[in-house]
């Protein structure tokens, strides 16, 4: 999978190819859902917003200019949606995350439960911009400059967000022993 393949997919989507849209969803659903899950702290809301993100990508395929990767473009759409919906889900978050933390994800065996809960709690305690920067750079694998492009924030701000966010998360893990 290369960036050229992705650009070809978006070009096909602009021409109305539903097959290309299917492939785009297949390729990038993990990144978009991961980003939104960390951002919202609620898997169901995040998946719902991820679906909306892909529909927006279909209807606004012409807005892709090619100056960023397709994955970055999709995460940018997701970020704007999450920011727009911030107020409504902030009210529900405390209730829903209590339920979420009690659940056990399928691929949770790789990390101890205490670490996962501590990191998740610490991540949700970060301000939204900082959480987004940390997720994009430490989880989704974007560079600082790519994350700055996605979030529409200055590069220095993103670097500072990642540095501080990472420190806070490490502190939480260290507290677990």
């Amino acid at each position, binding site marked *: 999978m290369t960036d050229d393949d992705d650009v070809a997919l978006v070009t096909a989507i602009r021409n109305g190819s*539903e097959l290309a849209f299917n492939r785009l969803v*297949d390729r990038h*659903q993990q990144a978009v859902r991961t980003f939104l899950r960390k951002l919202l702290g609620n898997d169901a809301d995040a998946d719902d917003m991820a*679906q909306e993100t892909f529909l927006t990508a*279909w209807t606004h395929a012409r807005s892709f200019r090619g100056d960023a990767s397709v994955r970055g473009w999709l995460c940018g759409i997701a970020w704007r949606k999450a920011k727009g919906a911030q107020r409504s889900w902030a009210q529900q978050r405390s209730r829903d995350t209590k339920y979420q933390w009690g659940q056990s994800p399928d*691929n949770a065996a*790789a990390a101890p439960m205490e670490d996962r809960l501590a990191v998740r709690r610490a991540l949700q305690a970060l301000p939204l911009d900082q959480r987004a920067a940390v997720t994009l750079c430490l*989880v989704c694998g974007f560079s600082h400059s790519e994350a700055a492009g996605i979030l529409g924030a200055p590069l220095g701000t993103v670097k500072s967000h990642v540095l501080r966010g990472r420190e806070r*998360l490490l502190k939480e893990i260290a507290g677990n022993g």
Partner: protein
Amino acid sequence: MTDLDPRLTAALNADNPPARDALFRVKVLERFEQARFRRQVARTIAVSIVLGLVAGLNAPLIEGWFVAAGEHVRITAFAAAAIMCVVPALLIKSSPGTVVRGLGRWLYP
């Protein structure tokens, strides 16, 4: 880089969704179809309203034709009514441009 970094990375990636998820794709396609259906219904309703308004506004003229030209106008009115029924149905399947081109080919083969 500290010895805590691997633990942080593992914890951050512990509950990521799977790389392939057919159910998620199906849900996206379901929403996609719902959105398309809503757009098509809205377009059909809009076209029907416009055609109804045009017919309503021109009712006196149409009535005058009926009185003046009798059978000839009745045939024309029947054809117009048929087109009014067919055009929205065609719009559901096709873009307006395709419909106009199709009608053009049908009227002027």
